[in-house]
């Protein structure tokens, strides 16, 4: 069986993942709409997942994929709860701009 990485190279996946991750970071910092911030977080998660899968192939080991599987489960749960929180914030404040959420101010 031919290893796909022979054609692509692990470093390309690394670059891809890193850039994707950084886009996520950038999004989190740049946007103030909580939904978009959430989406950026999803992008980061996917960047990591992607890398996992790439390395799983690289090491010829299924553990990485299992890990991605769990990570997806967690992501699903996180999104569900997170969005529920956003909805209740929206209900209370009428907006989901994160700058308004300053109740934790010292």
């Amino acid at each position, binding site marked *: 069986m031919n290893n796909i990485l022979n054609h692509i190279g692990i470093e390309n996946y690394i670059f891809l993942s890193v850039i994707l991750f950084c886009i996520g970071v950038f999004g989190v910092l740049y946007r103030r709409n909580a939904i978009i911030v959430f989406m950026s977080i999803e992008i980061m998660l996917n960047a990591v997942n992607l890398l996992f899968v790439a390395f799983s192939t690289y090491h010829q080991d299924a553990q990485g994929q299992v890990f991605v599987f769990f990570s997806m489960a967690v992501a699903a749960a996180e999104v569900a709860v997170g969005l529920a929180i956003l909805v209740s914030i929206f209900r209370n404040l009428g907006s989901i701009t994160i*700058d308004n959420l300053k109740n934790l101010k*010292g």
Partner: protein
Amino acid sequence: MEMNTNIALVLVLAPFLGFLINVFFGKSLGKSLSGIIGTLSVVVSFIATVYFFSGIAAQPEGIRITLFDWIQISNFKVDFGFQLDQLSILWLLFVTGIGSLIHLYSISYMHDDENMHKFFAYLNLFIFFMITLVIGSNLLVMFIGWEGVGLCSYLLIGFWHKNQEFNDAAKKAFIMNRIGDLGLLVGIFILGSLFSTVDFTTLKTAITTAPDYNDFWFSVAALTLFIGACGKSAQIPLYTWLPDAMAGPTPVSALIHAATMVTAGIFMITRLNFLFDLVPSVQSIIAIVGAVTALVAATIGLVQNDIKKVLAYSTVSQLGLMFLALGLGAYEVAVFHVITHAFFKACLFLGSGSVIHALHGEQDMRNMGGLKKAMPITFVTMLIASLAISGVPLFSGFFSKDEILLVAFHHNIPLWVVASVASIMTAFYMFRLMFLTFFQEFRGTSAQKHHLHESPSLITIPLIVLAILATIGGLISLPGNSWLNGYLTPILPKLANAEHHLGTTEYILMAIAVVGGLVGIGIAYAKYIKQNTVPTEDAAISGFSKMLYNKYYVDECYDAIFVKPINFLSRFFRDTIETGLSALVFGFGKVTNEISYQGKKIQNGSIGLYLFVFVLGLCAIVSYLFLAQ
């Protein structure tokens, strides 16, 4: 030996038992019974003393009784023990003897007071402590008595405790005594560390045989002990409490502040004569202090109008004379004067008490006069005592005072002059007192005049006994043939070699003293009988006599030098330092709070900032971990 121990315990504990009975059951016993119990307990002590006195000739080295270990110090231990030798027995004799008389007197004198049982309790306690002081076998047991009599003095001066001025006087007496006590303690410390003992007998051996004694520390020890004596025996600079102590009932003044407690300093110095003999510099200080005290107190006494104040200053003055004798190394003379002084001064105080009693508490001599007829016994006894104190020949005071002057003359002429002047003044003010009180017309209110009466026999009997003693007391040490000197030889070894001859000088000096005394009396007669002068009102006193009347403003000076600064310091500490320190401690809290308050501003709630810092931190940590590899 067992017998002696038991009798000694009876001697000590009888007054204490009296105290306990009066404290716990005094009120229910009733006034007379409590007075009788109080008196009896002292009489028992007196009898026990007589027992020891009769036996002392057979045991010249004295009796020592050790009861139990008391205090343990690393280099010595202090026993709780008694020492009954010539000196202590002599003191016991007049302490318990005069004590009994004064107890007897008090039964009548204090009969109107609702707290009479307390009065007797305190008196008994005083006798108990005085006995402890006298018969303690070491400095610390003596110190128990020393402080204990101070306590009783405090209690008795402030006996009428509703009056805050009396309480002030009591407090003053206690505190001034304590200044002296600190001196005494320091002296004990020095002796203890030098000789590893505070026991009189071993101390005597140690000091007299000390091969290379440290002169400096000896002097310091002697000086500090003398400061202790100054406090208790009211010498300059610690004498001001004694006149104020007259706030107490008159029997107290007679017993504590004339006859017994104030002689404790003389007792202590005589007890430690072997130490003081080694330090001539301290001896001269003692002599000078004594002479100056005698003179200063006598001058103040010249113009006082309160009958008890006159006697108080007279006491201070006489104590000064005794210290003069001590300073000159003539311990036996000082002891002699202590005894005669105890007789005549107790008599004078009790007499004045009788007068005050008759006048319902009046103490100002300007409101007296002409009491001779109304109170003949009081008058006669007081006259005898006055003659004795003035040094009129054949009365006891003549012999003792003359001895002091003699000693002073032989050592130092200026001291003799000072002492002589003080004696002349004494004669003057004593007869001023007599003339103002008993002669001329009565100057009080008519109500008082109506009630004038001679005091009951319980008061007059002690007066008569004391007057007799004041007359014949001189017999114990006649010039040239002194029983006292022989008796005290075991305590004062150098007496054995002393010569007692009476030459021309001595007779001339005696004559001068007698003439001086008579001159004093004469001046008083001229002024208060011939011219019929009555001292002016307080406001009208002016010039030097005003200064004398106000006691040289010594109290005011002490107030300004010590009391006020301490009170100022106290307020300053309380209001400034305490608040400052407190603020300093709170300051730590405030600083912490402030830091936290500033730090809180970073947490401004901006999630963007948090994330940015988070990213930076992440980068920093990751690069650090990477670079560290």
